[in-house]
């Protein structure tokens, strides 16, 4: 090895190559050993989505939509049930500009609905049962069906397949349990502008 001292340039190059080799091997090992299963971003996006499984975004369920967003194939503003709050959360997560909800996919419902089957009209065809993405409809062939209200996400998917149109989407009424104090309305009395500004507004 003593001859290396006579060739400082070769020594330096050799040392660097050796270092590169060692760290490369280390990184390669770590990449294999600590490999992440699946795409964690998809899970994070999926956690924000409302899990209505309604398909209004154009994908068959929330997870496929999450995958499409993660792959850059879908916009973040295609989920009406999630609404503006959902878009904001997605924008924060992905560090992009929030966009207004795409009207093409529907509008945000002000009140959540649940499906209701008019049971005396039900013919027991099981078509709605097959359509329900969360198994919230109970029944059997030629037997009356009914919706388990607590499990219904209000996705609407059962309404279309019903051959006798006996399914209604009923907006959920506010109860003592769901009611809460509203935020005080700043417009109702809070003065944000200086009095003279307001006079100018009026003059204009």
């Amino acid at each position, binding site marked *: 090895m003593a001859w290396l001292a006579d060739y400082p340039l070769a020594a330096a190059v050799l040392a660097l190559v050796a270092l590169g080799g060692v760290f490369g091997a280390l990184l390669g090992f770590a990449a294999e050993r600590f490999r992440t299963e699946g795409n964690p971003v998809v899970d994070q996006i999926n956690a924000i989505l409302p899990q209505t499984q309604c398909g209004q975004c154009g994908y068959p369920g929330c997870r496929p939509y999450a995958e499409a967003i993660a792959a850059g194939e879908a916009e973040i503003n295609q989920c009406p049930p999630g609404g503006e709050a959902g878009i904001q959360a997605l924008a924060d997560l992905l560090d992009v500009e929030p966009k207004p909800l795409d009207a093409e996919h529907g509008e945000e419902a002000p009140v959540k609905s649940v499906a209701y089957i008019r049971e005396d009209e039900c013919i027991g065809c099981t078509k709605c049962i097959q359509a329900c993405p969360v*198994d919230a409809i109970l029944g059997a062939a030629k037997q009356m069906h009914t919706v388990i209200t607590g499990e219904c996400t209000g996705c609407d998917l059962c309404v279309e397949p019903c051959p006798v149109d006996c399914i209604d989407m009923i907006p959920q009424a506010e109860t003592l349990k769901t009611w809460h104090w509203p935020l005080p309305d700043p417009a109702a009395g809070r003065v944000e502008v200086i009095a003279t500004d307001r006079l100018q507004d009026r003059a204009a």
Partner: protein
Amino acid sequence: MRRVHAFHGGVHPPENKAQSLAAPIQPAGIPPQLVLPLAQHIGAPAQPVVRVGQAVRGGELLAEADGFVSVPVHAPTSGTVSAIEERPVPHPSGLPAPCIVIDTDGADAWAPLAPLPEAERADPTKLRERIQGAGIAGMGGAGFPTAVKLSPGPGKTIETLIINGTECEPYITADDTLMRERAGDIVAGTRILADLLAPREILIGIEDNKPEAIAAVRAAADSDMEVVVFPTKYPSGGEKQLIEILLGKQVPSGGIPADIGVVCQNVGTAVAVHEAVALGRPLVSRVTTVTGEAVAHPGNYEVLLGTPMGWLLERAGVDSERARRLVMGGPMMGFSIPEPACPVVKTTNCLLVPTEAELPTPPPAQACIRCGLCAEACPATLLPQQLYWFAQGKEYDKLEGHNLFDCIECGACSYVCPSHIPLVQYYRASKADILARRRESEKADHARERFEARQARMERLAAEREAKRAERKRAAEAKAKAKAEAAASEGAGGTDDAQAAATADPIQAAIERAKARKAALAAGTAGEPADRLATLSANVDTIAKRLAAAREKLDAYDGGEASVAEALKRGVEKTEEKLARAEAELREAREGASEEA
């Protein structure tokens, strides 16, 4: 003398307590109709056990508790259940809730009361059952089921029992008059609570603006109960604040007093416990302060639960012209009741009917000037103006990070705000928003699980169908193959013989069996003469018997038809021949045997 501690912040609003203290507690009487909400407490609403049209007596059960965190509802007087329906209830939303409506008959007939026997009072389980069964929920204003508070859970020992006689909110004097007039009952109830919890010390905390109450409770208190008097400040009566005043200890954020070995009960609750245990009387009435400038006779009324507020106010002489609004609770923490038909419930400690001059409409809110008065006033040492910004921006994570949930909604911050910002309103709304979002996200998680479970099931079913199809295909192929093979081997004829053998088999086998038996018999004849001799002699004996029987028959038959007699005679002859043959055989055999020997 105990050292009294101070808590951070607090305010000194005008007390306005004298108005309602002029007269002693007076019974409000029986209104024509009582409306009893099924949820007068925190927790699951009670479940009705009466039918419409059913006659009930005072103290009878109307609705039973639904689970552990729930309390039952009892009939406050006798009458008929006229409806079980949704009625407006005292709630800031003004939304209706299920109620049991009783048309009273004025007789006030009561079901017999059953006090808890002395022997059972030592059993904590029996005591708790009785306290829950009597429908007792915290009477201070929150309405938390008392029995739950009295079950601190395994591993938690209660060091201190605090009886809260603070009543720090302006205008309200219900607890004050209760302490003045029923100090004995309060002490008796405290004794029961102490027996249940076995605390090291029992403290009764009273603010120093109630000298008469202090004197009355001191006179009634047992030697092991300490009446602690401390300076008046709002909100000393908050559970966590009172604990800090009396013990100098803080309840940890997000915790409950039992975490530091303390249980706090209101004086009204102590009286209700005493009545439930010692008298067997369920919670059907409470002391309510009716006050405000629009009330002609302010004072404290013993009101049956379910009494419509409008009816009570009429009794107290409310001038509806001057009344600006109706507030349940005090001016700091109370809320407006939109509908005077709302009933008095277990938590109604005060009905305040102020005039416009007394409690003016708050002026429009101005911008926050960051003066910091709210932070100085906050008894929970929070940063109200910071929380205000976050609440406006709906920054829920930051709100939680700044301990929004430690806010007791006392309203001290709004009270001191020079810009008249309704701060506490922002916190109430934000808290509810956060809780609603938590619920929603739980529901979303649940929906996702169900969706994924369904997807998995669909895939499994598809796989099963596929597997079955493959199985059927394989079976069909195997069958076809077997058939082809059979057709091929038929030409050789091998299978035909086998089939014939199989069909003839039973007969063949029977024949073979018979042959084998004969062969065996022959072998026996040759091989074992002793046996043969025995058989033959038995044969001779049998035939001889048969001959005897035939002769007897012939002798017995006399006359009649000749052919019968002839037949009998022939039978005898034949039998004689048989006998002779058998005897000859036997003889031969004997001779053979002796020759051999």
